[in-house]
């Protein structure tokens, strides 16, 4: 068992009850997709797993260890084993692509080396390898914020690969990209999942992408899991339950 979430609750200071007792398990090598409307708690769930947000109650177990209350060095070590990719890419603007990729390694670098940017030859080589993996090696010296959306997201993927993550969290990674680019970015996640065996947990909106890439699906509605199963089993009825009566499926190729 790679990851286990038990009865997770999150109540924000504003009083919003974003997660209401979510429990599920993730095995090694899975491509788990979380679907649900905006505001259903998908992003909160991912951020509670790697403790970017502190859960209010419940448990998260990673590699058999309870990580809900760990602190300091232990917490950083856990975070460095979990990669994360965001909807808005969250790159350091005005810095080069290479520097952005190298920041993925910060968890295992000392303060001195990182602040003075003295990266060892091994780390640099690793960064170029990962840039090559996502097919943008030639942009290494460009400023990150001048790249196209799809390229920026690939930089973000390369950054997370620097962590050699046991699990890769992706929070709506293609929601701000056009359909064609969406598909190509999703293919990199598939490649990482299939070829490197990295477990992927991904929030998605489009069902066509879910059917194509997911090995298992969880659906959230108002902070609760209302569906758990294979992507192929989501029929018209389930679709209406998850997205509401008025929803219609949009095809994305």
């Amino acid at each position, binding site marked *: 068992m790679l990851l286990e979430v038990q009865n997770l609750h999150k*109540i924000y200071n504003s009083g919003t009850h974003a997660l209401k007792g979510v429990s599920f398990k993730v095995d090694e090598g899975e491509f788990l997709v979380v679907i649900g409307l905006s505001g259903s708690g998908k992003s909160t769930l991912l951020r509670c797993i790697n403790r970017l947000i502190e859960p*209010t*109650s419940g448990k998260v177990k990673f590699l058999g260890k309870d990580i809900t209350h760990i602190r300091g060095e232990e917490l950083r070590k856990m975070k460095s084993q979990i990669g994360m990719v*965001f909807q808005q890419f*969250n790159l*350091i603007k*005005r810095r080069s692509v290479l520097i952005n990729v190298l*920041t993925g390694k910060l968890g295992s670098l000392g303060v001195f080396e*990182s602040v003075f940017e003295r990266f060892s030859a091994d780390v640099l080589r690793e960064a170029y390898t990962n840039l090559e993996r996502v097919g943008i090696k030639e942009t290494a010296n460009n400023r990150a914020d001048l790249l196209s959306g799809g390229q920026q997201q690939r930089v973000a993927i390369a*950054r997370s690969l620097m962590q050699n993550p046991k699990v890769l969290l992706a929070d709506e990674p293609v929601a701000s990209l056009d359909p064609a680019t969406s598909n190509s970015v999703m293919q990199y996640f598939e490649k990482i999942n299939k070829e490197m065996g990295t477990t992927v947990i991904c929030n998605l909106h489009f069902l066509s992408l879910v059917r194509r890439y997911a090995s298992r699906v969880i659906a959230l509605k108002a902070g609760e899991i209302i569906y758990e199963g294979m992507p192929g089993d989501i029929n018209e009825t389930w679709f209406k339950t998850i997205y509401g009566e008025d929803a219609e499926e949009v095809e994305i190729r």
Partner: protein
Amino acid sequence: MIDTELELQPHSIIARRKEKEAKFNFIKSVLLDIFFVFYSLVVVQRAIYYKFILNLRDIPFSWNNILILLMISIIAGYAWTYSKTSLSARLFGISKDNNVTKWTVEIFSWFLFNITFIAGWIVTRISIIDLFSSEGIQGAERIFSALFQPQLGIFDDALFAMIETIYIALLATLISIPVTLILSFFTARNLMKENKISFAVYYILRIILNFVRSIEPLIWAIIFSVWVGIGPFAGMIALLVHTIASNAKLYSEAIENIETGPVEAISATGANKIQIVWYAVVPQIILPFLSFTIYRWDINVRMATIIGLVGGGGIGTMLMQYQGLARWHEVGLLVLMIAFVVWVMDYISAKIREAIY
């Protein structure tokens, strides 16, 4: 605190937070209502009744009188909030939603605004007669005509004093940069709120900086001219102190307003605090910092001229001397020079700031 929360059911946590908030709002509302009533009573009694209606020269003052007013306002303020129709109840969102509230809020707001304006008019002793008396206008004509015929004989001295002023401003700005940089990280809420010790540091630093900033550079110059003696050094330290306090606030606000995305992304890689600040915070704040600092140099040049008036050196000191001798032609030259330099600085700093963004 966290442990006890974990044992409770989520619903009771929500209920408890709401209850706490309502209680807190009620207390705040009572205090504000008491203040409103007290303020209106004092203004109406002292400014409008004593000064305007009775036209007294010496206004009677006794602590008993103030205490009675305070007692009345405590009772009235509490009762008013308790009825949930008061202005503050509305402000803190705990009022009843009916016509009584609507009318009391509207009438009382107007009342507050009007008595404040009237009291201000009385206290300022606004007088149209003084402004347009023939004697006064003659005096103004004399000064203005002198100002526009500047005495060029002192140009060399004035130029030297002006250069001194610009250097005072420049040095105060440059020396402030490293100190302000370090302080700004410790006074940014988003970086310091995580644990109690750092939050205490944040809070204490903020209070000190607010205090320092609330004292004008002019007053700092008076203090330092006693401390290190009259002259440019006193003026420079006075500006430096105030620059640090004001820029630390601006810098730390820039830190508080950064995009949180990169911070999330970098902390998700397992980076430590220093690495997060260096990679996710610093790149976002360099430009605003630069811009604030250049703008502050511009402000400091203006301030340096004023600070000279109380012995802070530079052109201000010279201005003060000639003004004391009523030599308006010399004053005219100095005023023109100050206006010119301030205009040039304003223009340059605006251009640089434009180019940066």
